[in-house]
């Protein structure tokens, strides 16, 4: 069977996808820069907020709790619409210094929404890791005369970061998938280009399938990076394989 025959069995217009592949690559760039800048700023914001949430601070704990509650309790799409369409309804915002460089741009609106959203999730995730710090480590730190700040810096945070890696890999993948919301506010991210292709040539699936494959490839890359991180930083936590007594072979002498 020739290649053309095989292609003719696939009910997709492959040539249209190929002809517009440079657009898809541009879409990949838009998706990646939005997702990863949001994740980066979101993670930076999440560190102090997680510390506040893990503490019993009378002022900061409830404030950060309220913030994470709102942003985790509402859909990302709604948050993005409120920022993109909602703010534009107010005359004073349209005439403020914020409008021209920031809020009039779809990219900035998406970045703000994504950052606030991922910061809320990362905060709660890191808070969980901080709270779960083994008591013994903290007690040992206290016993050796560490102040609260020194404990955080030397013991609690490094340990919490490591233990948060597996859960954070989920957050990264969720954020990547959540970034499709950008296509609803005119941005040409991966899904945006897919919808452009469908709209331009009145197709049903081609744009979506190409987009799905690209997202899948990116997720593969993210997953392998996190596997490497876990191997490197969580080695001390992996359960050691203890083979049954009968099968133990004597360790070679070193």
């Amino acid at each position, binding site marked *: 069977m020739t290649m053309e025959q095989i292609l003719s069995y696939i009910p997709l217009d492959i040539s249209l996808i190929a002809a517009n592949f440079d657009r898809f690559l541009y879409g990949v760039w838009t998706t990646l820069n939005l997702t990863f800048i949001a994740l980066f700023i979101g993670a930076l914001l999440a560190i102090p907020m997680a510390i506040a949430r893990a503490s019993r601070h009378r002022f900061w704990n409830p404030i950060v709790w309220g913030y994470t509650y709102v942003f985790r309790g509402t859909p990302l799409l709604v948050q993005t619409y409120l920022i993109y*369409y909602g703010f534009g309804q107010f005359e004073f915002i349209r005439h403020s210094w914020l409008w021209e460089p920031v809020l009039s741009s779809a990219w900035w609106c998406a970045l703000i929404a994504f950052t606030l959203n991922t910061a809320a999730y990362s905060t709660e995730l890191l808070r969980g890791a901080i709270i779960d710090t083994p008591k013994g480590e903290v007690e040992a730190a206290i016993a050796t005369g560490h102040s609260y700040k020194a404990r955080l810096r030397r013991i609690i945070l490094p340990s919490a970061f490591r233990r948060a890696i597996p859960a954070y890999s989920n957050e990264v993948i969720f954020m990547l998938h959540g970034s499709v919301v950008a296509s609803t506010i*005119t941005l040409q991210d991966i899904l945006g280009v897919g919808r*452009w292709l469908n709209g331009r040539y009145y197709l049903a699936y081609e744009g979506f399938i190409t987009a799905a494959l690209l997202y899948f490839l990116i997720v593969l890359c993210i997953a392998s990076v996190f596997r490497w991180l876990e191997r490197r930083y969580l080695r001390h936590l992996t359960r050691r394989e203890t083979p049954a007594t009968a099968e133990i072979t004597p360790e070679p002498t070193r």
Partner: protein
Amino acid sequence: MKRRTLFATAAAFALTLGSAAFAQDVLRIGVEGAYKPFSYKNADGTLAGFDIDIANALCAQMQRKCELVEQEWDGMIPALKAKKFDAIVASMSITEERKRQIDFSDKYYQTPARLVAKKDAGFEGTPEGLAGKRIGVQRGATHQCYAEKMFPGAEIVLYGTQEEVFRDLALGRIDAELSDSLIAQESFLSTPDGADYAFLGGDHLDVECYGEGVGIAVRKGDTELREALNAAITAIREDGTYAKINDTYFPFDIYGARPASN
């Protein structure tokens, strides 16, 4: 006893037969509901507009029971092909590219496309004038095809609905928009939001992108329905039903005419 069983069986049979005939009779029509004044929703959520009235008039003419199914614009053709409905009455232009996917009835109206921009825009509605500008169009509309063909130097910004295009034009996020001139007049330029805006340049007609008017889409090979629709369009044109619907929305005949308002 026996007789009663027989009766019950007959009744059940009649019911089945009846409901089968009923199911076959219901013609499902895809409409958009976000394209004023052709298709929009009243405050109470009911559908209204020129397309909606035409759809209902055609159903009455064909003596068929119809069900209107709402569908977002860029999924319209896929939904028709997936048999979510049997016909599309949603101001869809008859174009060559679409004809590769679906069949069309005869046209039921035809209006030209025009650009809209700020009154004192400071640029012309030409490919040179619009180079580097942001032009908003509805995704999957004929205007996407035309804008990308005619204004290669401009940034084409895509929206899910025409309403979003007008909203961002009013907010200043795009420099111009390209859409049906009638839509622009009725649902933007004549509203408070559109007070500072005006048409930019003249009519845009292009057979490749805009085709030969607006028709009713049916699945490929659904000739029986297509011919019934064609006959019904001719009939409502002749008996005055079309004119009556036309006059409730527009001050002139849109069947083949140009907008008189500008």
